[in-house]
């Protein structure tokens, strides 16, 4: 049984991505008790699956290392993974959350020695590579995973493979009988840092994501560029493994579109500008990136980066919302449209097209507590007055990492205000 000591002076943070981790850490370093709930087996969220950040082109795992160290060294944070808030009741200053914890089939004895992975042959699609590769069914999500503890994929349970895994563990860490558990956690305030999910690219029919292998999303492209991705960091196109040197970036894939997402997802322009530099990093002068855009939204100091990329001879820009994508016999994708600056019709062939896919809140379609007011896109706009619920990060708006962290830090303060009120009242 997972024991969590929590009171009405505890802050519950839902979501263990960079926003949730930030909110939890900042609150904890102000001396508050925090319970951090993450539905996947590891903290880190989407940023852990990015190769580099714009505009510095530094690595997200660099900040993740620091944040994990802060979490490890803090005695105020209790982390629950594979856990989801299934119900929540009460009021500001006194909530009770029902948390469902899925079985990991690996207990705290795990030393992350990896013997179980060696023992197991079965493989499953790797969600941390968006299914672009397979991984052992006994796995450590990724090399920076925290908790640093293996997971047995549920599909193993009841198979001889599971027994092999169990047999391989000297430390009695594998518990095949582990059951889903439900726990109640008290909290004075709740921070919803449930993050975002990519818009379903297949719904953008003219771009043929569901028909052409060489049309991929910007998130998948991050994995292609990442040394820990499915191609070991080589930018190879999916259909035939050909080196993708001529890459098209299609902006507003789902965003700014009444047929899909009404809002602008803010990060996509910068993400594509950044990704043009991956192509350059991979192929040098032989690289060719073309950005098809409506407006390049490189806001504030990001403009510096935009100007840098504009001066990069391997990158060209075309003001045009691509009308449709086809695939020719060679497997190249052909983009059809019109450059609206002047009037220039094009049918451009590229090795691969990357959809700068729009951002929608993870809670889209999910029931969120009535206390939370969401906008038409499903982002948490605000909470009812006198609520102890606070949105943080991309759950509240389409934000870049920097702004998501600001938002989470602010959310942490709002939560602390509730806790301090409770404390004063009880003092």
């Amino acid at each position, binding site marked *: 049984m997972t024991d969590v000591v929590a009171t009405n002076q505890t802050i519950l943070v839902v979501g263990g991505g960079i926003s949730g981790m930030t909110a939890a850490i900042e609150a904890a370093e102000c001396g508050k008790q925090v319970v951090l709930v993450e539905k996947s087996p590891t903290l880190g969220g989407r940023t852990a699956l990015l190769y580099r950040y714009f505009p510095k082109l530094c690595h997200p795992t660099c900040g993740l290392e620091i944040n994990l160290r802060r979490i490890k060294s803090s005695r105020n944070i209790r982390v629950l993974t594979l856990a989801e808030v299934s119900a929540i009741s009460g009021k500001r200053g006194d909530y009770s959350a029902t948390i469902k914890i899925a079985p990991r089939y690996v207990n705290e004895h795990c030393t992350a020695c990896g013997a179980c992975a060696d023992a197991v042959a079965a493989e499953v699609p790797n969600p941390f590579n968006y299914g672009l590769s397979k991984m052992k069914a006994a796995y450590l999500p990724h090399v920076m995973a925290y908790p640093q503890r293996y997971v047995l994929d549920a599909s193993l349970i009841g198979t001889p493979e599971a027994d092999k895994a169990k047999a391989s563990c000297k430390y009695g860490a594998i518990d095949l009988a582990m059951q889903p558990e439900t726990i109640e956690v008290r909290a004075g305030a709740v921070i919803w840092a449930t993050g975002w999910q990519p818009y379903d690219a297949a719904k953008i*029919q*003219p771009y043929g994501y569901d028909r052409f292998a060489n049309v991929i999303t910007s998130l998948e492209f991050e994995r292609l560029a990442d040394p820990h991705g499915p191609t070991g960091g080589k930018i190879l196109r999916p259909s035939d493994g050909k080196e993708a040197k001529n890459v098209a970036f299609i902006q507003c894939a789902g965003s700014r579109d009444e047929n899909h997402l009404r809002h602008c997802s803010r990060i996509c322009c910068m993400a594509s500008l950044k990704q043009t530099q991956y192509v350059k990093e991979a192929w040098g002068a032989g690289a060719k990136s073309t950005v098809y855009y409506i407006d390049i939204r490189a806001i504030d100091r990001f403009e510096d980066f935009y100007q840098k990329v504009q001066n990069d001879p391997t990158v060209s820009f075309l003001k045009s919302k691509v009308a449709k994508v086809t695939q020719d016999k060679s497997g190249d994708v052909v983009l059809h449209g019109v450059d609206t600056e002047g009037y220039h019709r094009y049918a451009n062939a590229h090795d691969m097209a990357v959809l700068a896919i729009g951002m929608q809140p993870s809670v889209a379609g999910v029931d969120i507590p009535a206390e939370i007011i969401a906008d038409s896109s499903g982002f948490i706009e605000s909470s009812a007055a006198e609520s102890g619920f606070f949105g943080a990060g991309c759950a509240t708006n389409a934000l870049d990492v920097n702004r998501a962290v600001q938002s989470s830090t602010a959310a942490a303060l709002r939560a602390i205000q509730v806790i301090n009120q409770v404390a004063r009242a009880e003092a």
Partner: protein
Amino acid sequence: MAKREYAFYPGCSSQLRGSAANYLVSVESMCEKLDVKMTQIPDWNCCGASISYAGSSELARHVLSARNFALSDKHLPGQDIVATCAACWLGGRETIEKLDASSQLMADTNEALKEAGLEYKSGTAIRHMVEVLVEDLGYEELGKPVVKPLDGVKVAGYVGCQTNRPFGIAGESFENPMYLDKLIDTVGGESIAKYEEKVSCCGGSLAFCEQEKAEKQIKNIVESAYDHGADVICTPCPLCQANVEVYQSEINRKQGTKLNMPVVYYSQLLSVAYGGTLKEAGLDGHIIQPKKLQEIAVKVVGRR
């Protein structure tokens, strides 16, 4: 008493000896086999099509459709209207949408209709024949009457524009609708999954006035079908059928090509598969003969 009844709006091209006369014939034999009763709307009029905009006005076009609706309400109350022509169906859908959205337009339309002693109350549903087939009956039921599966007939399902955009068949995508392929497979034919020109435009009514431009489109549509080894192109739209079939000879004449790709209606495929004769399936109504289908049509199958 038929299993299903509809008010039928054939549209001008389907009239006797009209350019889509064989469409009507095949639809009738198909419906008979499916036990679907279609009653023509008495004294129906032209829908105005998409092309009449220069001479007409938006309101006038709504009046045309609304008159048909009113007549249908009056004589065939409670029955959905079924159109076989894409443009008729589309025009009708647009009128319903616009009038429901604007009480002003609705009032104006009725003010005009009054001159013909008619009134349109909203609530009419106009469906394309294909909707009736795939939604009301469903592929499984459509498969049942098949007595002559179209074995070895490779069919390019050419959806074209107006049954597909802007409304389309429920659950289908604009870029890659599958219903024609499913229909083809249902009757034992071989559909072509990756037919690139599936939803391109044949030029529509501009084939009359911008023939060369339309022929460019038609050439692609036909050649792509050849590329995929199609025996025949199949379409749900009379104008698509006429354009793509008729202008091949013109293209050949001008460009020395040897295009000779038959173009038929989905209803003809079903009709043949259901055991319809050449005549019943309207297979005698082609300039480019759909030989493979004709062979199947004349083939005698033993009683089962």
